[in-house]
């Protein structure tokens, strides 16, 4: 099952029809650019919107989510909108996450800005889908990155942690497995995501309205919201780094490898540690992905045979085997 197929196809078409490469010697004329703009305008309509694709619906159903979910508006977490334009403060736990696509500026060297815009938008839309699929809430879009909250008043903390890990794992999967090789085939090396996630407990998080009048947003003040982007910047290629509070919720050491350097020193003898999260193992263990003969992940939500499979595509693997029987 290719959950992100529609997003990938749009990126593929945008790249394949970009006029930059074929006109490198003489440069791009305005008519060429205009034609490209028109093409991209039509192509944008192929991105999944509120209506989910068949694969996305199947995946949502498999995860126990409604097939038609409402995308939440940005900027105000729905459980704390009452704080808007007030002086009120509420303490409530939340998981803060940051994820973005690294080396994406290289795209501008190879494509028109229109193509880059559509690539970026496809990745952002796929990410928003993955966040909403897992019950998260996109707080802010920053170029090719997202700031996300998981949790709220009607969800258990452990469930929210699991959701956050699943969501960020799926986004990491999309860029690493669906896009990275494609970009490399088209001369763009080393595109990858980096992500950071941390949990602030209720005594560690203030929800409040930051700003003046309409020029503001309901947001959090927490060491752990502030640490999440630092963790993101420490993540290795395609990696997710999480804070200690996340690891203690899940209590499964096999997914977390403590990094040698702490992410925060309280300067009273205590230190707060960060961990590399093994998201690929987590996806497989949670039945969200399976692995092929080479160990490469493929997202899937059920173990039923794919109705569109074709024996031609199985032949290269199956033909390595030639069985024999010698038992009595």
């Amino acid at each position: 099952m290719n959950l992100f197929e529609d997003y990938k196809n749009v990126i593929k078409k945008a790249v394949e029809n970009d006029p930059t490469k074929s006109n490198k010697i003489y440069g791009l004329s305005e008519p060429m650019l205009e034609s490209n703009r028109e093409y991209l305008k039509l192509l944008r309509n192929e991105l999944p919107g509120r209506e989910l694709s068949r694969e996305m619906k199947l995946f949502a159903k498999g995860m126990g989510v409604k097939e038609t979910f409402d995308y939440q508006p940005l900027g105000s977490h729905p459980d704390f909108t009452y704080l808007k334009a007030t002086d009120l403060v509420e303490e409530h736990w939340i998981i803060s996450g940051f994820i973005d696509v690294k080396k994406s500026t290289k795209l501008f060297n190879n494509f028109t800005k229109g193509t880059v815009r559509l690539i970026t938008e496809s990745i952002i839309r796929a990410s928003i889908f993955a966040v909403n699929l897992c019950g998260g809430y996109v707080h802010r879009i920053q170029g090719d990155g997202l700031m996300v909250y998981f949790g709220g008043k009607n969800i258990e903390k452990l469930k929210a942690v699991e959701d956050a890990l699943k969501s960020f794992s799926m986004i990491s999967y999309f860029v690493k497995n669906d896009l990275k090789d494609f970009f490399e085939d088209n001369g763009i090396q080393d595109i990858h995501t980096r992500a950071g996630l941390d949990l602030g407990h209720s005594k560690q998080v203030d929800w409040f309205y930051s700003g003046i009048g309409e020029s503001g947003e309901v947001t959090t003040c927490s060491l752990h919201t502030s640490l999440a982007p630092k963790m993101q910047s420490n993540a290795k290629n395609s990696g997710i780094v999480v804070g200690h509070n996340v690891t203690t919720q899940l209590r499964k050491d096999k997914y977390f490898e403590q990094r040698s350097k702490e992410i925060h020193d309280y300067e009273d003898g205590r230190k707060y540690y960060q961990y590399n999260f093994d998201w690929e193992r987590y996806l497989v263990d949670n039945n969200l992905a399976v692995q092929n003969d080479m160990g490469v992940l493929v997202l899937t939500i059920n173990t039923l045979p794919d109705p569109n499979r074709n024996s031609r595509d199985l032949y290269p693997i199956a033909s390595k085997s030639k069985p024999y029987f010698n038992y009595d």
Partner: protein
Amino acid sequence: MTKTNLNYDIDSFLSKYYSFKEVDSPKPGYLALKGKISVLDKKGKLWGQFEILILINKIEYPYTIPIVIEKTQIIDRDWDFHISKEGVCCLDIPHQLLKRKRRGITFEEFYRNVIYPFFANYHYKESTGEYANGEYKHHFEGIAQFYQEEFDLENLEDIVALLETSIGGIKHQPNIECPLCGKPKYKKCCRKKVYSLKGYGMQQLKIDLVLFRQQLLKRKKVLG
């Protein structure tokens, strides 16, 4: 390749294939891995899953062939599917496995190129009615088929002569007429086959020689 690399190879495998884990072995002296194989084709389409148990001889590794047992009973315990009643999978003809064993295996490579394709091939047969690369016939006929395909030999006398030469270490001058098949130069026909046979190990060659001699005798009796 040293004999101390089993743990390294298994750790490396388990760090890449997440649906497998080490479990207590039901067979003393063997390391056991239990896990799930998901058969995916080149387009990433899922065909099915099998629970399997893999047993690896700790002392012999890497000069060993892992035992693979299908636990889900998805594959019918029928010899047409090359599986024993207990679910032990007949992965390949013994000669090919012995060649691997004598060279020494790396478990991950063995998983990718022998174990995984066996299960992929099951689905291929389910879908098309036949195995992707054919199959060996059962028992002796399969051995004869192997000699025919691998060495282009059908004549029982030629096979026996070849086996006797290989087992006995008989040396012939390279430029003489081939004493095994009668072609002009020994070095250009059967010498390569004699050397190649040695790769399967003396034990298997002796078993084969007995089998082929028995077949020759049977045929002579029939012909009277």
